[in-house]
């Protein structure tokens, strides 16, 4: 039969080890949560890019374009639209940025499409549909790992997706 002193030692041991185990488990879970958040955001951007790349008559130079607003709301809030709970915590539909891009024949680079005539994007005379769309989260999505006993640095998740534009 065990003596009281032995039980006490066991309790102390356990008390020392439990925080370590909890830290390990929570740390592992946080890792997973960061991955999940990143994957979710990336997939949402991919969805937005897919929908935006087949739009007809959308003005990519207008931040308030109704078609683009609808897409942003859809990927963040789902079919219920604005007001439903967002895809990830505190994500605002406005934070999803759909940037038109243009291939420059002179230097062979892909850069942001200027808004306006003479080869730019938008709706003015002499504009043309963008060549590519770049979908990003404005400023990145800040993720704060929740680990007990420690204040962790915020991790900025910056997924982005580029697709060729196939609409008009």
């Amino acid at each position, binding site marked *: 039969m065990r003596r009281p002193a032995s039980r006490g030692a066991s309790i102390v041991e356990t008390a020392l080890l439990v925080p370590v185990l909890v830290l390990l488990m929570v740390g*592992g879970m946080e890792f*997973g949560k960061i991955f999940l958040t990143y994957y979710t955001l990336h997939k949402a951007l991919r969805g937005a890019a897919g929908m935006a790349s087949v739009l007809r*008559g959308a003005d990519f130079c207008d931040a308030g374009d109704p078609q683009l607003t609808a897409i942003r709301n859809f990927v963040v809030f789902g079919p219920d639209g604005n007001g439903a709970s967002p895809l990830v915590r505190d994500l605002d539909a406005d934070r999803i940025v759909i940037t038109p891009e243009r291939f420059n024949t002179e230097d062979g680079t892909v850069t942001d499409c200027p808004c306006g005539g003479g080869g730019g994007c938008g709706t003015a005379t002499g504009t043309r549909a963008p060549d590519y769309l770049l979908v990003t989260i404005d400023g990145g999505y800040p993720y704060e790992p929740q680990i007990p006993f420690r204040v962790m640095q915020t991790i900025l998740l910056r997924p982005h997706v580029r697709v060729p534009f196939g609409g*008009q």
Partner: protein
Amino acid sequence: MKVRRGEAGQSLVLVALLAFILFAFVGFAVDLGRLYLIRGELNVAADAMALAAAQNLIGTSTAEGLAQTAAARVQDGTTGGDNRFNFEGNTIGGDSSLASQVEGMDLYATYADAIAGDLGTTTDGSTARYVRVRVRADAPLTFWQFLPVAQLGKTSIGTAAVAGISQPLCTACGIEPLAIVPVDFADDTNFGFVRGLKYTLYSQCTGAAPPLLAGTSGTIQYTVLNRNIENSTDLDQQVFQLLAGGIPAPLVPVSDTSNLACPTIGVADLRLPTVSVAACNAVQRGSIVTDTVCGLNARLTATPHPFCETITDVDGVITSYPPDTDVDNQDDYADYGGNRRRILTVAIVDNLPFNVATTMNVLGFRQFLLEPNPNTTELDPTDPVGRFVAMYIGFPAPVKQGTFGSCGVTQGPGKVVLHQ
């Protein structure tokens, strides 16, 4: 005393073992999650490249090169917007301890071959309808590397995307707003036109055929489709822009639920009323026919014809729609090496009413290759009946956009879709 010491040690050992096992399992799960995540990112890159490449499958011998260039362009990293992997940390093909590359791009003629993976029979640019892009990259294994099987600390992940030209469309968008009548209504493949044959296209309100342009073997009457622009403040410019670049988005409001946005097979469409000029043979600046040829001319040269200079902001529109990279006279479509600007997708309609603004029913869509006029690199906008040369090519190139439906056509142009 002996027993007590042993018990205490046992507990510590047990917990330490448990912690180690727990740590190992958590580590495996994290690594596995990361592999899936990286595969997803590689997939996005492969999809984008395949879609860009498939838009260039236009049935010419240079299509493979065009497709490869287009796929590479998507991954241009000037602004850092190229699709990356490993939490956007690594560029594909970039210099890093994690090797990555676009493994290859294969062209296929049939869907079965395209989705058969490495077993499918590949083809060349002139017959390709599908493209498969393979991307491979190393994914880091932070925790698995403690195991003997993964001591390199990374593993290679491959992914592939297949894009291709779809089944025939019932509604085609972004096509040229021109309508022509079949030579043979019973021929549902070519409507009586002959592939590889050059035609003189003209627009004349009397319907009488003008003399043939050199090198052509037939005439085709065309008219300009009404794209809801007749109330525009500057009709000349709008028609010019329509013909220079297809139907640009701003001209077709989304709220427009009529047929004006995109022609649909089996649905009536309207001719632009102003095409019917009163004096058929009078050369008059401002006629829609002149604007039409001026617009088409912008596909061959960046310098506006003197006759077209009065169009408002003609240089600005031409900047937006630069001329084709291949403006040579082609006798064989397979030799055409341009960037698709010369391919005209027109609507085939059942009649061309010139005297009254009546409707015509759309029967299908077919494609022509715009040719420069004989002995020049340009078209002639001064021609009173708007003649230009075009070679009938069938329907090899995908159109910009469109929808399927129950129109029942079995042949015609498709659009680019992602298959896998």
